[in-house]
């Protein structure tokens, strides 16, 4: 019933890291299969425009709109597309699963119209009409500016950007950026394009206000509290590496990211984790690490090693971001007892704050038992309550039971034999 595919190198994720890996491996003559859950490559950052903007990977087999559901055994992935489940056998695996937005709860964060800054950006790129509508971007980091620029370009009125770190921290970050002239230029250009937009530092959301949907936001700006009317509130508190697949494969994960060596090889033989999956650092780091992973996976270790020295400045940039945009503890102090923490299962702060472990809370309140399996509330609970959140259970994403029944078979092979 189900087809089995074979490939030499499987690349999961067609964002900057995955595309770079596929390209580098293809250039070495390797047989590559690229898997992405979106209809077209590009990842979150080049959404839908990956083939135009990324390296050319036309020779790769592209499995689009396809999700990795499980890693049932070493050397094979269980995949689900629109129509079928199938098993992909690989020799080497590049896990370029990227990152998702970190969410922090505050009263009103579940109102329609309140969304992640990146998510809002994606909605607009996807055709959401925001012309003439008022938007507030709040949280921390460069993503706020990028999202504001997209919204402004789409005709929205960005009424405020609220950055939680202080002006002094921003100034220190800007000063440190001088070592990265390209990034500095980008930031300056972005800020210039948003020169008409009010920008507050040391400002954070206290509450999103509204009944049916958001109609305003209360902002703590230094000592003052302001209420600002808006139709959209995009919040961004940084990114979290997607480590569910590396964990399912048995890769070591530390500080929320896959542990890799200089060649971005994980603790599991033949598995590489370039890009955000091994540590948040942006598109340049992702592309470089993708190339390293692609070369190494294709056996071109010398070529891969030659690129390793270029990683150091990218890693320094990553730690700069982390250091200068560290979240202030006040951001977690806006909660009310009835503020929901687990949105899948509607579990409130009051319910959860009586527990001292994630497992016990999960058993008794269902927190984290929903479709997202604590992808959103897990990091929140870790921040709020200091819990070590339970490991993810298979499948990696909700999957049709028919997919879980898919069996590796020796018949009906569509793929080429491994070389």
């Amino acid at each position, binding site marked *: 019933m189900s087809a089995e595919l074979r490939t030499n190198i499987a690349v999961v994720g067609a964002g900057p890291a995955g595309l770079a890996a596929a390209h580098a491996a293809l250039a070495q003559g390797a047989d590559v299969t690229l898997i992405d859950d979106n209809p077209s490559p590009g990842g979150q950052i080049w959404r839908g425009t990956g083939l135009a903007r990324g390296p050319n990977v036309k020779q790769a087999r592209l499995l689009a709109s396809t999700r990795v559901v499980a890693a049932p*055994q070493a050397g094979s992935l269980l995949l689900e597309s629109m129509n079928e489940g199938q098993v992909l056998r690989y020799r080497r695996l590049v896990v370029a699963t990227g990152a998702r937005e970190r969410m922090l709860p505050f009263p009103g964060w579940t109102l329609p119209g309140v969304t992640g800054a990146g998510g809002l950006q994606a909605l607009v790129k996807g055709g959401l009409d925001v012309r003439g509508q008022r938007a507030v971007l709040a949280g921390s980091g460069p993503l706020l500016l990028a999202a504001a620029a997209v919204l402004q370009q789409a005709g929205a009125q960005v009424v405020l950007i609220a950055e939680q770190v202080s002006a002094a921290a921003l100034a220190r970050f800007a000063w440190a950026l001088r070592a990265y002239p390209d990034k500095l230029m980008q930031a300056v250009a972005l800020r210039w394009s948003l020169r008409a937009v009010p920008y507050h530092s040391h400002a954070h959301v206290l509450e999103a206000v509204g009944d049916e949907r958001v109609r305003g936001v209360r902002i703590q700006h230094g000592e003052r509290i302001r209420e600002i009317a808006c139709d959209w509130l995009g919040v961004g508190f940084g990114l979290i590496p997607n480590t569910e697949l590396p964990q399912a494969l048995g890769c070591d994960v530390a500080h929320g990211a896959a542990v890799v060596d200089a060649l971005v090889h994980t603790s599991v033989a033949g598995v590489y984790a370039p890009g955000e999956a091994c540590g948040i650092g942006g598109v340049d780091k992702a592309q470089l690490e993708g190339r390293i992973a692609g070369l190494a996976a294709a056996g071109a270790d010398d070529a891969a090693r030659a690129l390793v020295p270029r990683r150091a400045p990218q890693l320094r940039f990553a730690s700069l971001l982390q250091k200068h945009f560290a979240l202030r503890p006040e951001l977690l102090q806006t909660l009310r007892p009835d503020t929901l923490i687990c949105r899948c299962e509607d579990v409130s702060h009051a319910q959860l704050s009586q527990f001292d472990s994630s*497992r016990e809370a999960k*058993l008794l309140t269902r927190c984290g038992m929903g*479709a997202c399996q604590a992808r959103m509330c897990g990091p929140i609970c870790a921040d709020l309550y200091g819990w070590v959140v339970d490991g993810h*259970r298979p499948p990696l994403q909700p*999957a049709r*039971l028919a997919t*879980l029944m898919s069996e590796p078979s020796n018949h009906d092979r569509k793929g080429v034999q491994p070389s």
Partner: protein
Amino acid sequence: MLIVGAGIIGSALAECCVRRGMSVRVVEAGIPAGATTAAGMGHLVVLDGSPAELALSDDGLRRWQARRAELPAAAEYRACGTLWLARNDAEMAEAERMRVRLAGRGLACRVVRAPELRRLEPELAPGLAGALLRPDEVVIYPPVASRWLLDEALRLGAGLLRGGAVQAVDEGAVALADGRTLRARNVVVAAGNATPDLVVGVPIKPRKGQLVVTERYPDYVRHQLVELGYVGATHGEVDAVAFNVQPRATGQLLIGSSRQYADRGTGVDWPLLRHMLRRAQEYLPRLGGLQGLRAWTGFRPATPDKLPLLGRVPGAARLWLAAGHEGLGITTALASAQLVADLLCGSDPAIDPSPYDPVRFGPFVTESDTLPAEVAA
């Protein structure tokens, strides 16, 4: 008395004993209700694999039914009933034999023919011959039900020592890993799969099972659905699957079941999971289109004769066992607790305790040498 283990058996026993005026303290190494109790389905079902199994599960179900109104809503008590599904005439004949046995104990049940079965459960495969309907059987959410029992015990004056890893037990004594020794008139080990670590030689072995839970599909099925072959499938020492699907109060479906004897790993066994789901699909042909959310595994504390060990450790006066309920511990918890409490008090249990007496497997070895002399109760 000291109870080692705050799973559903230890919690039910604590509640039962404290209500009888005993002074009770429960020692739990991990999270109360966090092991076998947390992993299972929560189907309160009368099984008649043997007269003793029937007696205990019947008594257990009746006790849950009697306490229905006390349970918190989050325990998700639902009397959805059980349909034991028959595929062919031979299984229909077995359904009829089961009806006679259960009716003989005054249990409500009736045989349902194919047309009625189609009306009761339209998603079931059209080719089924019929079923035995047990209309008053129940589904609950075990972790909450178990914690309710423990909380009741604590409210009535019992004590709970959390994080109390137990190193050894002996006549009226419990040695903790931190060096302390707790003493009491009686010690009851209700530690499930960990019981043989404390009372060496107790023939309890972990029997692995796997479950899958789906997205919400309210009324997709309305009864707990079990294949009649289930009772047979639970015997023997080969890895096996049997069709067993439960509608949760949330509208989700819980899909089982499997049994593995050698596998001690907590990871999902994919070939067996596929086998289990395909078995389920034979009964529910459109199952493949539903979204599966999570798969997990658990370990049932199994004994060679499929009956729990309830009573004194052979040769001991003040050391007791309440363990080894395999997959039936949620159903029998209240019955097992009453029986052990009766034995502890020296009164006559409502049902004959001899089939569950650990002496049938004894004698066992306890770790009395390892107990330090110093006492800190």
